[in-house]
């Protein structure tokens, strides 16, 4: 066996055999930091938290990248950038959506809400946020914005969910700290606050 091989030769071999498919390429194409030649750059108008924002968006750019790196809305977190965890959950027309897994270009007609858009004009927390504070729902907090958005989406669709319904609605959001019980306590408390 040839003990010497270059990294590129090895990678080619692995990819040809289908043994390894990394997400790295997806990450970099998704961040949209560079303008690939041949593409026409486009200014896209998207409605974020009630404001229409014009953003220079690459064709392959995900909503999460636009929010975080173009609009500075870093409340939306990236836990996996590949649709596994829910940390990036936002609402699009009231529907919970993984911002890492949709392209910003497809959002032109959508009403996007992120965690930054929930507080009232006078700074009051949204009832879900208030309930999560009261119940000490977050632990490390990294999944929290996604949990908040899933709970807001749930309560808009169903203001009076049972705990069982709530856990199904929230089940697209992983919490590695295991704070599920505390988040569900928070959702149930939020139903009371909303009245």
């Amino acid at each position, binding site marked *: 066996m040839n003990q*010497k091989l270059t990294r590129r030769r090895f990678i080619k071999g692995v990819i040809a055999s289908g043994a390894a498919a990394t997400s790295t390429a997806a990450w*970099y194409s998704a961040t949209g930091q560079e303008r690939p030649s041949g593409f026409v750059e486009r200014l896209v108008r998207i409605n974020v938290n009630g404001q229409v924002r014009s953003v220079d968006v690459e064709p392959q750019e995900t909503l999460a990248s636009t929010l975080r790196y173009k609009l500075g809305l870093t409340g939306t977190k990236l836990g996996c950038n*590949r649709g596994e965890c829910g940390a990036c959950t936002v609402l699009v027309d009231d529907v919970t959506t993984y911002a890492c897994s949709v392209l910003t270009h497809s959002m032109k007609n959508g009403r996007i809400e992120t965690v930054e858009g*929930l507080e009232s004009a006078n700074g009051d927390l949204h009832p879900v946020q208030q309930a999560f504070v009261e119940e000490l729902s977050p632990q490390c907090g990294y999944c*929290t914005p996604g949990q908040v958005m899933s709970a807001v989406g749930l309560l808009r669709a169903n203001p009076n969910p049972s705990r*069982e319904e709530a856990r199904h609605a929230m089940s697209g959001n992983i919490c590695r700290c295991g704070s599920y*019980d505390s988040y569900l306590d928070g959702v149930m408390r939020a139903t009371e606050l909303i009245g």
Partner: protein
Amino acid sequence: MAYMHIGKDFTPPDVPGKVTGRIKYAEDYTREGMVYARLLTSPIPHARVLDIDASAALAMDGVIGILTADDVYPDGEPQSTGLKILTNEPTLVGEPILALAAVDEKTAESAIAQISVTFERLPFVLDPLDSLQPGGADAYNGGNTFVFRQGFAEEKWTADQVASFRAGNEPTAEPQQTVEYGDLDAAFGESSYVYEGTFTNAGYPHHSMEPRSALAYWEDGKLYLHGGSQSLTAFADGIAGIIGVPKEDLVFVNAATGGGFGQRARAGSVPVYAVPAKLSQKINRPVMMRATREEEFTLGGARQGLTGWIKVGFKPDGVMAACDLWIVSDNGGKGGGADAYSAADCISVLYQADAVRFRGTAIGTNTAHRGAQRGPGQNQIAPIISPILDVAADELGVSRLDIRKINAAMTGDVGGPQRTPFTSAYMPEALEQAATEFDWEGRQSRRRQTNGSKVIGLGIGQGYHNAGRSGMDGIVMMGADGRLKIHNGVGNLGTYSYASTSRAAAEVLQMPWESCDIITGRTDLHLPITSPQDGSNSIFTNTRTCYGAAQDMLTKMKEIAATDLGGDPADYDISNERVHQIADESVGYSYAQVAQRAIELGGKYTGSAELPEELAEWTQIAVSRLEGTGFMGIFHDPRHEGNPPGFTVTACEIELDKETGKIDILEMISIGEAGTIMHPKGMDNQLVGGAVWGIGLSVYERHLYDPQNGLPASTGYWQSKVPTYLDTPLKIETGWVDLPDPENPVGARGIGEPSMGSVSAALTAAITDALDGHIFGASPITADMIINHVAGTSEEAVPLAQNNFRG
């Protein structure tokens, strides 16, 4: 005792920032002129880099520079594998070879694709027992094991020895480590039930939600490093050494950390933060290094896989007479931990066996970096030992609750091979509370009831971790505004112990919480050294330091008042933010006034004189910068005596489907025994969070490697399945014993790790119960293993395999 703050709920100051998304994690920061680093990592599990040709990459537009192992280690790479930040001798897939900085990540990644690295491919190994075989591959260059202070060595068993162990027998090879107490032979001689068998615990990643991204830049000779860690000052202290920057020149910024679970407690487990720091130094630009989920797996760590043999003897009354434990630990590609020893220690503590022997050998594999993961060792042995206890109880005609009560640790007992006395221990109370609140006795009639293919199982289990250290420092400050500033270096990974330990200082000074500020989040706010936030120690360790610093301030307050206003310090007391004479409360100073006087007086009152002699270097730097700026209370904590234990008890009822192997946890309760409870909601979070981890350990989590190429096959959440909302009970009930520990000024001990162990112990006991006493001797017990057992087939391709399927 009636406390003002201890045992009361409060909102830690970072919680609003978490629900609004305003709190910043490392990757949320930017810096003007920031460039982006990408890593070129090893695509093969064991290799030697023969040549790197980066000329094409460096010629690309937008590429700023690279950093290689030769830059970092001009005199050669360090001997041990663990702390290397870049290497020419990779020992696992994904180990960083070099880093490249460019104006954006895509350019960086494109440039990395242009770098040609020539590797010499070396034999690799994924299973410690394969490495122990004659002729088996060695994971490291120079051997398959690392001997402390001696370096790499090679260890081999005979083929018969390996085969015999795989066949289920006691290993006959010489162990690297032997620890024992008591007369093992005599204790087994007294036993009327003896269990003997092999077991495996799979390794699996921490998979913290926040990938280990970091930002570094240098300004005015100082390094600013943004990263996520469990510990603030202890981590900064360690990473300064890895980077090679003087402690006083490092500013570590870390307001929030997206999970740690042991992997970010110490700098040694996140050495990769040194990469942007070194790269930034070389190219003189701020460097952001974002990590992907996949990199979080390969740069991160994993629980040590344990391959073991256990023999346990019980006397006729159910007393555990003896435990003999032989464990081969998987040390992975970059070194490991001491999980195996801790497993033996845990059995000794929890079950108070008359005689215990531990024999262990640690062997490397070309798999993930192994390091501490929530209850390292204690929590692997929990799902192994608990079903054994139950089978013994059934054999001896003792109830499954009673066998735990008979063997329970209590105040006055000792535990572990060192026979260390407990500072206090209330395990009988915890067992009783769990049994009562769960109606354990009443539920026994449901045991093994069937409904079609489904069967009910009941389980009760215990968890333990040593939960407290000492010897750290505390600082509190007060300005002329009379507010109390508690300088806390604990770190913020979601336990809120940075806040709850601070409340010990507020308690001493009877300070309303609204008048307190916790100073934390970045080291240039001048924080004292703390112990790393691991080993469930923070509550015990840092209530001692916060309490001590506040006591020092209280003493000084009384001194100042007595000097100025007459009388003796003993004539003074405090209330309502005033220090005043006991006899005449009108004679005194408000806190604002006494702080003002302290500032005027200077000297020991402002940190300029009479400092405790033993302050750590890190604390000394903080004090030197705070000196003269306010009224200072300072404390160096002396060492305590004994082992402060953290205990938990969990009871659960499950429904196991014999057709699908699926387990539904119908009900679960976890009771904590952690001394005085500081923060009930925080305690609750640790109990439910630990429960989720215990469920993952017992039935879901394991990482796998492709045996042909050594590629990790479980770099995501779905491949090494993390429990979700739907895998955990709808409601996990919690409670606590709440009896004080005498070695802590407020009576508190920690809990974060045992909360996982007791759940795993209870859940595997319930599975054994549902399957009529079958012991799998494994974690996780996956659905396929259950189906195979029910079908009477054994699907173990390679018995006792690590990093591969078991059943």
